[in-house]
């Protein structure tokens, strides 16, 4: 039996609920793309895609795909009214220049000082694919991570120090896992809220660095 926890859709809904109207947001490949569909329909959030889109809309209906309109994950997408096209240098100027309010990324590991490892699985991996991960991690105004709390074999992904090759140093400020929402602060990991079925003691055991629980709510 799997442990109690939020589904990926529930995680995405939690992230989406925390994004205010008007933010410019880049959603990394993988779980973060689920956030797009979880944003309330009456809240305007402008999605950016590295390959030159702002105002990215949802996936088109089957048969309505436009072959010229894909996102950074190479999926067919649509464009909202108010959207714009631009080239790669301009796109990464937006990212590197700090114009993206939020980037949501997946992770192999996040360290208590905010270090992120999400691109290569070992030093020996000679042909890893970095894509735009390092630019996003270094450039966006804030980096939130969406990830399972541990690997499948129970190894913590929230750690004292990353063992995987780093993507960027000290950039992650919040982590959404299947068990909890955790801030990354000057004092390390601080619990914001957690799944009701998960005891704090268990959560601490599954976290690879001190987790300050304080008066975190659970929901």
């Amino acid at each position, binding site marked *: 039996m799997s442990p109690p926890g939020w589904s990926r859709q529930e995680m995405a809904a939690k992230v989406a609920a925390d994004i205010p*109207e*008007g933010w*410019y947001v880049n959603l990394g490949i993988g779980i973060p793309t689920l956030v797009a569909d979880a944003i309330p329909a009456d809240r*305007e959030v*402008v999605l*950016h895609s590295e390959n030159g889109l*702002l*105002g990215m809309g949802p996936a088109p209906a089957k048969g309505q795909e436009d072959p010229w309109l894909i996102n950074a994950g190479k999926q067919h997408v649509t*464009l909202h*009214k*108010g*959207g*714009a*096209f*631009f080239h790669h*240098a301009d796109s*990464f*100027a*937006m*990212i*590197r*220049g*700090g*114009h*993206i309010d939020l980037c949501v990324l997946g992770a192999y590991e996040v360290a208590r000082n905010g270090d992120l490892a999400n691109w290569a699985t070992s030093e020996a991996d000679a042909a890893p694919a970095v894509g735009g991960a390092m630019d996003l991690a270094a*450039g966006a105004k804030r980096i939130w991570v969406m990830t399972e709390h541990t690997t499948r074999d129970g190894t913590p992904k929230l750690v004292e120090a990353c063992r995987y090759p780093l993507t960027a140093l000290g950039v992650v400020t919040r982590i959404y896992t299947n068990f909890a929402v955790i801030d990354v602060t000057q004092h390390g990991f601080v619990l914001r809220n957690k799944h009701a079925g998960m005891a704090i003691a268990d959560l601490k055991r599954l976290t690879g660095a001190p987790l300050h629980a304080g008066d975190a709510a659970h929901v």
Partner: protein
Amino acid sequence: MIDKSVAKVEQALAGIEDGATILVGGFGAVGQPDLLIESLIDQGARDLTIVANNAGAGQVGLAKLMQAGRVRRIVCSFPRSAGSVVFEALFRAGKIELDIVPQGTLAERLRAAGAGIPAFFTPTAYGTRLARDKETREIGGRFYVLEYALPGDVALVEAWSADRWGNLTYQKSGRNFNAVMATAAKLTIAQAHHVVELGALDPETIVTPGIFVHRVLPLSARKELAA
């Protein structure tokens, strides 16, 4: 709903502080955000650093702001235009500081500020007085000067069309420094000849995507100012 348009020039300029660095778009008379610049006089900010290609002409726009004594320093490539009488009088009187930057280096330093590039090497001005005391380096057999990003607290630009997301287009040679400065400030304010419905601008032809723009003032607000 995102709506960056503001009805009044006071709202457009709210929060600009004394000592701010203000990027002012335009080249020659084309694309000058004169309504915004002149309204800074009533807004009241003092001790400003202005970044602009020219140092104003005649008695309007930037010249008017300088005449009102609000500008401490100007960073520009070409202070002496026909009609830059206000600047020249202030400069001779020692009442304004001047920092001359080659036009392309000015554009690139602004672009760098918008693009998260803190510094870059350029061949421009190597071996000249404008590179004096600057770091230089030989790369690939040629000599270059290190230049730093030039960010603004505020950018004032003039657009042709704008929508409520802040997407901008320009008109002909009105693109000039406007489209570069729009990317380079913490607060970018555009005066626009036309504010159109969201979706009315072709996504292929938007020059400044709304991500760079914080407030849009329709130029119809000019009437209100005159009234």
